[in-house]
């Protein structure tokens, strides 16, 4: 048991927990619905920890990455459909994350937006080309810890702990009119979906194979996922509290990534602003790296191409070409002028629609003695796994109708 590895794994998971979708959805959720959308964060955090742990365990014991399982369990036709839907969502998410980097660079430098998009795309290409897998994960994960300032901000705003506690009880506020009710339910799904986006699991399990995990790494896997993601979700709670205390009383419904940093300036001034902007920069930067690699992992695993960041790019030509193409497409999407925050909203809602196809094979294989031997799911994991599959299917079925009924949560 390597305590340093466990500690670093937890820190990486905490720092890498937040991406642009959490920044947007959690701040808006607090601003519009006060503390009443804290409970979906808990549901999302347990869900991502549960399924990442299963995917990591499969990677360590059965040495099988996600899309290998998806093709094997679902067959080629349904597997191919899942792959295309997943790539579509991953590219959209990658565009949103690169857009997030561009926005922060612009806020720091006042350079023109289109120029910062280009810089953001080039930085991600360069970083991916130069850094080894472990460093990619750790550099962005650790530097994303700048976002811990959000927790200090939330505490310094002196939230009413009783009201915060009540927000963790699953609820549907009774005073909402029908349009606001649709909006509330849309945000419930948005908050859960922003945490359990499929690229997290693809990246995590492929990373386990990249790092040659074995059964000896199962403790690191379990602690990193459960402790890391649950602590990471505290950042999402902090964002909601900041939205609820600063924006809600003023009737502000923040539509910009810029607004997320405003809370810390009120408490800590320029230092708070710089820390949050750096935190956002590395958090969305890490997510851009994860999404572009997740897309390349998926395609390579499905078609059986040689893949991995431990190899030289010349030894994994299709894999390397895929992540380069994903970044280029993401940059082109941003050049079309679409707002990254809008792309995020679409990506989050469409990802939940495709999520059951991603999670079902993980659940089945982690429960299969043929692959997992004595490392199959325990009774608690199995029960929770089923409960989460039901939650995911309900979210998948209702996501699109709620998106249209609430006009993207704007009613």
């Amino acid at each position, binding site marked *: 048991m390597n305590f340093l590895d466990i500690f670093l794994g937890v820190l990486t998971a905490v720092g890498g927990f937040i991406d642009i979708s959490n920044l947007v959805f959690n701040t808006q959720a607090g601003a519009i619905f006060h503390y009443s959308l804290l409970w979906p964060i808990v549901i999302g955090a347990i869900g991502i920890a549960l399924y990442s742990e299963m995917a990591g365990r499969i990677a360590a014991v059965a040495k099988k990455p996600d899309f290998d399982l998806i093709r094997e369990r679902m067959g080629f036709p349904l597997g191919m459909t899942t792959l*295309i839907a997943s790539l*579509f969502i991953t590219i959209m998410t990658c565009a949103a994350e690169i857009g997030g980097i561009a926005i922060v660079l612009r806020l720091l430098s006042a350079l023109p937006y289109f120029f910062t998009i280009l810089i953001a795309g080039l930085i991600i290409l360069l970083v991916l080309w130069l850094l080894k897998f472990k460093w990619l994960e750790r550099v962005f994960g650790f530097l994303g810890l700048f976002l811990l300032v959000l927790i200090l901000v939330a505490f310094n705003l002196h939230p009413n702990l009783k009201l915060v506690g009540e927000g963790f009880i699953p609820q549907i506020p009774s005073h909402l009119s029908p349009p606001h009710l649709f909006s509330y339910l849309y945000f419930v799904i948005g908050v859960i979906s922003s945490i359990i986006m499929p690229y997290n699991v693809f990246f995590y399990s492929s990373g386990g194979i990249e790092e040659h995990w074995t059964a000896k790494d199962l403790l690191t896997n379990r602690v990193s996922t459960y402790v890391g993601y649950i602590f990471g979700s505290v950042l999402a709670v902090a964002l909601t509290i900041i939205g609820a205390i600063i924006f809600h009383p003023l009737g*502000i419904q923040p539509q910009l990534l810029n607004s997320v940093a405003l809370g810390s300036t009120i408490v800590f001034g320029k230092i708070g602003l710089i820390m949050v902007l750096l935190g956002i920069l590395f958090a969305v930067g890490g997510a851009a790296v994860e999404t572009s690699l997740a897309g390349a992992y998926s395609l390579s695993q499905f078609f059986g191409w040689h893949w991995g960041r431990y190899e030289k790019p010349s030894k994994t030509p299709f894999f390397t070409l895929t992540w380069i193409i994903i970044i280029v497409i993401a940059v082109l999407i941003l050049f079309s002028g679409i707002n990254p925050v809008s792309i995020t909203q679409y990506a989050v809602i469409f990802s939940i629609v495709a999520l059951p196809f991603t999670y079902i094979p993980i659940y089945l294989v982690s429960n299969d003695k043929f692959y997992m031997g004595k490392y199959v799911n325990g009774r608690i994991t199995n029960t929770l796994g089923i409960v989460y599959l039901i939650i995911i299917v309900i979210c998948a079925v209702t996501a699109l109708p709620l998106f249209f009924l609430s006009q993207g949560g704007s009613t």
Partner: protein
Amino acid sequence: MKALLVSIVIIVGIIIVIGIATFAVSAMSSQKLTRQNVQQIAQNAGSLVAETTLLDQQIQYQKVTTNYAQVYLKDLQQQVSDTEQQVDKPASRDVQTEVKEQKQIIKQVRQLLSQSLSDVDSPIKMAKNISALEELEQKQNNLLQSL
């Protein structure tokens, strides 16, 4: 091959659904502004006025960097322009007075945002903008209540 075709059909299906939904939303938004539309626009406008006031306060107390302030103000200007376009449509008879008033408030917000952009480095001038914005906030709240 069959799988590829099925996948393409599904993706095309998704795109068509999004297209129809977008068309339906834009068709609805091209109709006359109803009371509900105006309420929503007024809420957005109120949010923008309040956000501008909050930002100007941080600029006045010099809690933000100049780059951040300038970029944020420009982004808010863009949002105000978007809201202005939404309200610049024919309105149903029962909300014409409110729409007229909303247009005036938005126009004033736009002017104050331009003023804030040129006063970023002057806390004294910024204080004037903030009090003007606070008056606008009051007007906007009254308008929202009348809706």
